[in-house]
């Protein structure tokens, strides 16, 4: 990966700003609510954020894709649906736990997707883990192959046949489903 020096400096500056804002929020050293202001913490924050930026500036922001802004908006629009799915998942698991006969029938399923980028695969894996009745076991990033443990037949079919979630994630990251 070769980058021009100018770009590298801009990247380091962006990482420094992110880290420093995080420091200010965490240490609460400028607090307008009770008039608290401590210069020691502010200067210590500059030093610490600078050292961390010098050592590991290439870890926070690694890949630069195109249309990042549109993807971010689509991701934000995806989150409410995901939250609703998490609610459904919790009621599903609570029903299975509290039912006296425990209606579970576990199985392992495998399916392929056409997603390739790391971020899309991570989002889909976390979504599968949090939504009703399924947990990701393993991913093959080269083939986009997912190994999923499903707790019953119905959630497995929802993932294999309907493919609602896969299409939504592919739409967010603008890849073909």
């Amino acid at each position, binding site marked *: 990966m070769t980058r021009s020096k100018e770009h590298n400096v801009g990247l380091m500056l962006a990482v420094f700003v992110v880290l420093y804002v995080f420091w200010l*929020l*965490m240490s609460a050293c400028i607090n307008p609510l009770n008039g608290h202001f401590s210069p020691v913490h502010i200067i210590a924050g500059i030093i610490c954020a600078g050292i961390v930026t010098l050592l590991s500036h290439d870890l926070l922001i690694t890949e630069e894709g195109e249309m990042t802004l549109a993807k971010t908006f689509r991701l934000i629009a995806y989150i409410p649906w995901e939250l609703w799915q*998490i609610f459904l998942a919790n009621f599903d698991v*609570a029903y*299975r736990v509290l039912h006296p006969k425990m209606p579970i029938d576990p199985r392992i399923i495998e399916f392929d997707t056409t997603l390739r980028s790391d971020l899309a695969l991570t989002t889909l*894996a976390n979504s599968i*883990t949090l939504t009703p009745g399924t*947990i990701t076991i*393993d991913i093959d990033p080269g083939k986009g192959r997912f190994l999923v443990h499903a707790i019953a037949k119905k959630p497995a079919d929802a993932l294999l046949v309907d493919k609602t979630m896969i299409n939504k994630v592919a739409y967010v990251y603008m890849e073909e489903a």
Partner: protein
Amino acid sequence: MFSIINIIATILIAGGAFFMVTGVLGLLRFPDFYTRLHATGKCDTLGEVLVIVGCMVYQGWSFITIKLFFLMFFIFLANPVGTHAIMKAAYLTGLKPWKKGEERR
């Protein structure tokens, strides 16, 4: 003391506590390792996030709310990843999943 804010916060915290108790009951009741992770991975995430959102509502606007928000964000990201890591380790070392009709273990 019984303002609207306190009532909303209490309802959120009670819901979170219910899901956390359900998660632990699932950890004790389900028949094998993989199904137990189904209970803990989902119920614990939503239960803790609900409790923390209740604390945020109770706290109002301050720096502690921002810290609680970061905590909530971190739990949302870290809990599924931790579940996934343990599950992958168990699967790759050859722990067989429980099938319907077998004895519990």
